[in-house]
């Protein structure tokens, strides 16, 4: 348990020290609110029923969670590059402990960033959730961070180099965002895209956030679309599967010797 704590603390200290990363992660949703918000509002069919900036608020909070948790987990790639991962792997702890520590670190970072953004954004667009709604939103943020943190860990453990990092980010992050219901309701999409949205963990997180923040507009069709229990279950499954898959992938770090041997044999 002390090892998990150590891993989480390190993630937090590193994050707080990278000012630019912290500032941009908090500023990003507001940039979206201003530019995407203004643009999408002009074509948004719900106009009249709900202000578009309110509609996109749960999605923006979800977006913060996604960037926060995924990026935190993907730091495993830089850890491998810098050699830090080897120090962790030679410690007398199980691979699953390493995976858990990393995922909890990502959960903490995703949650912190979402809370900061949410605390500004929610009152800014004039939403006032009930205490129960606020509690549900907090739960949604924590659970989504954990699920995406675990997913990010699977990606990070599979990515071999920093060069692939940016490519994966673009390939995963944007489809995930657009198929999450963050910017428009999913129910009008075609069946193929609906299916993709069903395997998108962020979609369940955003749906849960809509239950929490847009309950007043549920009648007009802009609240959560899926049962809360299904959202929670899907996120929990994603987190569990992610951790189980990631742990042995981290152990494959034996690759360090292989690379060292090749480099030495040259």
């Amino acid at each position, binding site marked *: 348990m002390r*090892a998990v704590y*150590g*891993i989480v603390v390190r993630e937090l200290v590193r994050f707080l020290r990278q000012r630019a990363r912290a500032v941009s992660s908090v500023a990003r949703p507001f940039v979206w609110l201003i530019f995407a918000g203004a643009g999408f509002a002009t074509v948004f069919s719900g106009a009249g029923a709900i202000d578009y900036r309110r509609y996109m608020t749960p999605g923006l909070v979800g977006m913060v969670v996604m960037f926060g948790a995924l990026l935190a987990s993907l730091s495993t790639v830089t850890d491998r590059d810098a*050699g830090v991962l*080897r*120090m962790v792997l030679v410690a007398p702890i199980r691979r699953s402990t390493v995976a858990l520590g990393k995922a909890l670190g990502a959960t903490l970072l995703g949650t912190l960033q979402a809370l900061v953004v949410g605390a500004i954004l929610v009152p800014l667009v004039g939403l006032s959730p009930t205490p129960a709604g606020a509690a549900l939103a907090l739960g949604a943020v924590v659970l989504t961070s954990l699920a995406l943190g675990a997913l990010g860990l699977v990606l990070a453990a599979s990515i071999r180099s920093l060069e692939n990092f940016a490519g994966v980010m673009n390939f995963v992050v944007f489809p995930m965002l657009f198929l999450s219901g963050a910017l428009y309701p999913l129910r009008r999409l075609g069946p193929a895209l609906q299916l993709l949205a069903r395997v998108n963990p962020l979609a369940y997180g955003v749906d849960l956030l809509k239950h929490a923040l847009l309950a007043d507009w549920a009648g007009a069709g802009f609240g959560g679309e899926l049962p809360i229990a299904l959202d929670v279950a899907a996120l929990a499954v994603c987190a569990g599967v992610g951790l189980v898959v990631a742990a042995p992938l981290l152990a494959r770090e034996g690759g360090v*010797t292989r690379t060292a*041997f090749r480099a*030495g044999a040259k």
Partner: protein
Amino acid sequence: MSPAAIEARGLGKDYGSIRALDRLDLEVQDAEFFGFLGPNGAGKTTTVHLLATLVQPSRGAARVAGHDVVRASLRVREKIGLVFQDTTLDRDLTVEENLRFAARLWDLPGRVGGPRIERLLGTFGLLERRRDPVRTLSGGMRRALDVARGILHEPRVLFLDEPTAGLDPRARRSLWELILELRRSLGLTVFLTTHYVEEAEPCDRVAVLDRGRLVALGSPAELKRATGVRSLEEVFLARTGHPLAEPGPG
């Protein structure tokens, strides 16, 4: 009698068609200073990673501090310290934060880890740099911190994989004095890999490795006497038919 610190039987590792380590039989006694001498690519690092449970053997078996490296890898990792060829420190964290991170990974409570970190910072001349990020340290200081990190949990066996690689001669000498001093004061088993003969000289025994095979084993004096030569360099040449090192330092 306590079990040997390290015991390998027919230990080997293949990477695809590359035979990194053939069949190694080896016994290292408690508190022994053991040198593993060979050129780059001889299989030294592979051996260390096998003994440190970081990779699985393709054949054979090994026990470290009495525990099997495959079946009891966690127990083995509790008992060993490993200083990797390349630094494994977090460059963005401070000297002290790196040690505290390691202390938590090795499950040392604060009241045990704290005083130990203080002591090590003193021993390794890092007290004044404790709050500086590791990236601002010189190569020699980083290496010293790597070693401090490696012995923080008071291992029984310390693996040093080419610890002086990439250091200038002065930093190399001071690190070397530190290692010898640690050995004297802690009495721990040291397993050193190197391709510098002068680093293998002070070892109790030296294993000479070439292309994944053990070609000689004994004390430096024995090896030289048995081969009828005056240096370990010549021992290597006589046993393998080719020189140990490429010309020039480095």
